[in-house]
């Protein structure tokens, strides 16, 4: 009698676990569906995490198949050669491209090749800015190339990249739980 009961219990537990696993799977599928929608929405303002993305996919998503011309001499990207703390890496982008006139800088993108989400930030400029310049601090996951891509209002793209050695990753948190 006791034995039968225990088998019965095990059975129900198993079925329960099965249902639970299915539910988790379904939730994950929904999540993927939703977050894929968010990928095309440039930035995620909801605070929900986005799926990981390789850098080629990011560049294709942001710029399509447009060619990125070399921006050496036009764009100055300053980063430390070795960043001891990947969680706080100072980055400076300065361009001598015009911000007013017929062709002017519209947006500056910061892209890190090996972050799980390569697009770090984008900054849009207007003629009132006077000059396209931005300095901020970013998180880098590991030793990587960092690119700064400048988009002009006519769609021309200029890009430069720098290599940074990162000693301590800025993105890894100890696993929760």
């Amino acid at each position, binding site marked *: 009698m006791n034995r039968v009961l225990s088998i019965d219990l095990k059975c129900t537990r198993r079925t329960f676990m099965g249902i639970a696993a299915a539910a988790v799977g379904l939730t994950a599928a929904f999540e993927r569906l939703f977050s894929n929608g968010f990928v095309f929405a440039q930035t995620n303002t909801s605070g929900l995490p986005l799926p990981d993305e390789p850098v080629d996919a990011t560049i294709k998503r942001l710029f399509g198949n447009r060619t990125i011309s070399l921006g050496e001499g036009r764009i100055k990207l300053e980063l430390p050669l070795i960043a001891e703390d990947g969680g706080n890496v100072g980055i400076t982008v300065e361009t001598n491209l015009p911000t007013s006139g017929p062709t002017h800088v519209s947006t500056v993108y910061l892209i890190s090749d090996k*972050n799980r989400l390569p697009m770090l930030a984008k900054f849009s400029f207007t003629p*009132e800015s006077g000059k396209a310049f931005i300095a901020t601090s970013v998180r880098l996951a590991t030793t990587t190339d960092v690119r700064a891509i400048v988009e002009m209002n006519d769609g021309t793209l200029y890009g430069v990249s720098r290599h940074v050695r990162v000693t301590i990753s800025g993105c890894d948190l100890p*696993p929760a739980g």
Partner: protein
Amino acid sequence: MAEIGRVSVRLPSSIKQGDVIRVRTLVIHPMELVQRDKQSKIIAKNYHFIHTMTVSFNGKEIMRSEMTQAISQNPSFTFPLKVDRAGKLTVTFSDTAGKSYEGQAEVKFS
């Protein structure tokens, strides 16, 4: 972190008309990182980070920036501003908790 959202805006000490000045701004914010479990799967929840910074001068938006969690904690930004006339500079940060934080500075010629 009692002072989340404190924004400070710094201007150069002397400003001349027509200059392109560099404005420094800093906001106190945790910029929460994505957490992962042991299988390095993302833990789905609402993360608390700043997603937009807008700069307006005399009520006109002159710069907008969209950012991700890859911007470090207590982020600081330096951006240019062309001053043809005096006025009020407003920097607004919005985060995923639905709050927005504002910092202001008066641009005067000396």
